[in-house]
């Protein structure tokens, strides 16, 4: 029957078109993963990383140096990473958690201890990062970058002042609807706590009450444009917002194209983070993983990465190879006195995190009926 054959031919045609397009495309780009390296692992690596967080040529340089093909996938937050690994490692070899997630993941058995013998470039790491409180002796992680949270702003729109305090985002009417703050519950509460004078890892209960009241007032006042994840710098750059809470490297990247943008750490101090390289438990190619981590810690490779992502590096050898406008960039390397006032976050424990999350939900719901 003609209608039956035309239906079949239609489905075939549809299918052929789809498969043809995809096989053609995939054929061009499928990495060749044959052969086995000396350690018995195939020359491949699954790297789970943040977006725009690797040098332009790092992966191809690594392949040229070692023959290992790196397949990089992206995640957008530590929670995504944690949720993905919590149910069982789907095949990642190297991951990039932030410092406060390292103890959380290692306690949950999700991280493999590192074999320092396989990472000789460890010697390049800056002394401050050799034995941090979140990973004594660097058992599970190697430092990749460090970051500072602070205020990104557009100089010409600041009405003549320099916004050197958190009060300009939390408690001021000066920049109505041109402010964005972080939506992440823990970071938001920690920064608000810093503004009110508390240490970020030790906010007492009455502090939490004050923070919640202040932030609810902020949401109700209508001064806030948005709670952001990572897009604060985009909103700053395209003119939707003039004062944003952001990471220094993100603003540094945008500032290279738009000199009207600047960044500072407020005078009350801020939160520091360090993103680290780890090997998750159950990684199929731990040997390749160690090789990759060692490669990144190399001075030259590290410098290539920093050139692209413009985040501060904990790698002394890399820093030495960077041009002056990187080393002296006050956005990338904020002044020492403000850094001294800033702290690294610790994992506050699951219960406390849930408490923060509920606070954040209440704050975000404050506009309702308010």
């Amino acid at each position, binding site marked *: 029957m003609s209608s039956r054959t035309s239906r079949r031919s239609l489905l075939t045609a549809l299918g052929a078109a789809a498969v043809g397009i995809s096989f053609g495309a995939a054929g061009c780009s499928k990495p060749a993963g044959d052969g086995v390296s000396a350690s018995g692992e195939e020359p491949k690596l699954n790297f789970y990383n943040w977006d725009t967080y690797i040098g332009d040529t790092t992966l191809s340089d690594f392949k040229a140096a070692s023959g290992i093909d790196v397949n990089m996938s992206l995640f957008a*937050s530590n*929670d*995504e990473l*944690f*949720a993905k690994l*919590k149910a069982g490692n789907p095949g990642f070899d190297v991951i990039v958690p932030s410092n406060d997630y390292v103890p*959380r993941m290692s*306690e*949950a*058995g*999700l991280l493999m201890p590192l074999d320092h013998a396989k990472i000789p470039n460890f010697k390049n790491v800056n002394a401050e990062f050799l034995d941090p409180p979140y990973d004594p002796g660097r058992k599970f992680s190697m430092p990749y970058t460090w970051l500072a949270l602070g205020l990104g702003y557009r100089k010409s729109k600041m009405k003549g002042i320099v916004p050197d305090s958190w009060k300009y985002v939390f408690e001021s009417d000066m920049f109505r*609807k041109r402010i964005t703050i972080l939506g*992440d*519950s*823990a970071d938001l509460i920690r920064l608000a706590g810093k503004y009110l004078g508390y240490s970020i890892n030790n906010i007492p209960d009455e502090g939490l009450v004050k923070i919640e009241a202040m932030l609810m007032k902020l*949401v109700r006042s209508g001064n*806030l*444009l*948005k*709670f952001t994840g990572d897009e604060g710098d985009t909103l700053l750059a*395209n*003119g*939707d917002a003039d004062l944003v809470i952001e990471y220094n490297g993100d603003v540094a990247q945008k500032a290279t194209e738009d000199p009207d943008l600047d960044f500072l750490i407020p005078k009350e101090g801020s939160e520091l983070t360090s993103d680290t390289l780890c090997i998750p438990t159950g990684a199929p190619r731990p040997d390749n993983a160690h090789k990759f981590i060692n490669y990144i810690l190399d001075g030259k490779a590290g410098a290539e990465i920093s050139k692209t992502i413009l985040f501060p590096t904990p790698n002394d050898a890399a820093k030495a190879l960077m041009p002056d406008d990187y080393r002296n960039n006050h956005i990338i390397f904020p002044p020492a006195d403000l850094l001294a006032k800033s702290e690294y976050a610790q994992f506050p424990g*699951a219960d406390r*995190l*849930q408490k923060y*999350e*509920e606070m*954040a*939900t*209440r704050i*975000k*719901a*404050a*506009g*309702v*009926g*308010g």
Partner: protein
Amino acid sequence: MEQSWRQAKSIFMTLISAPLFWLVAFFIIPMGIVWLYSFGENSGLIDIAFTGTWSNYAHAFDPLYLGIFAKSIGVAVVTTFFCLVLGFPVAMAITFAPDKAKSWLLLLIMLPFWTNLLVRTYALIAVLRTNGYVNMTYQFLWERTSGLMTLLGMQPLGDFHPAILLYNNFAVVFGLVFVNLPFMVLPLYSTLDRMDRSLLEASLDLGAGHIRTVWNVMVPLAGPGIVSGILITFIPSLGAYLTPDLLGGPDSQMIANVIESQFKRANNWPFGAALSFILVYMTFIGVALQGVIESRNKRRQA
């Protein structure tokens, strides 16, 4: 009309085996696990123990979360309303169009639906933001009008303030309507198309104007289609995640965003599971309502 399965056992078995197996293995079982989680608790850092507790549901009935449910329902209702109001004339137009135009029109309306949700929402950002196309046009018109008024000797308009169209509830509703409108048109068109046109012609012949005909004759006849359309629009709007996430403002969070944060940030899967299942129960109620309305309609027609 139906026959008992015993009359054609082999065909019945062949036909039902695959869908049934798939449904059970790859849907019921996973959802069952999540349902069990809603009665469980976090034990340790990554495991979940099934303890048969109701605490998660109790927590979900906290005013904070009830308020968010209410807000999500409100947003969904407004979205559905606009989809209905905008979609009905379009469905009418397609129904009564000449055949050739019909399929083209239908295609035109459905085509955006086939593009990726993310792409469409992202496109809206560029339209609605402070330096977006709407504001640019608005600014253009404002300045031209101001210039014109100065020319005519009148006071010029004041400084241009861009309209704040993004990162607020307006943007969320706008985005949801934008995304769901094609969903509304199809069932409306389906029902209108099967409608007996002689009734409309009779109404017009008897002297009722078009508006009255539409309101008193066409709309009631399109009843089942309207109900389907409402359901197909309301449910996705209620459970929307991407649109409030990308387009919403500080106070625009909807229930799906809260659920997502429970599964991610708060790492509280049991609570997130409880919240999602409340959403599921609510939608069951909606579907049941539709079923009741439909059977009442059928009885009326019989």
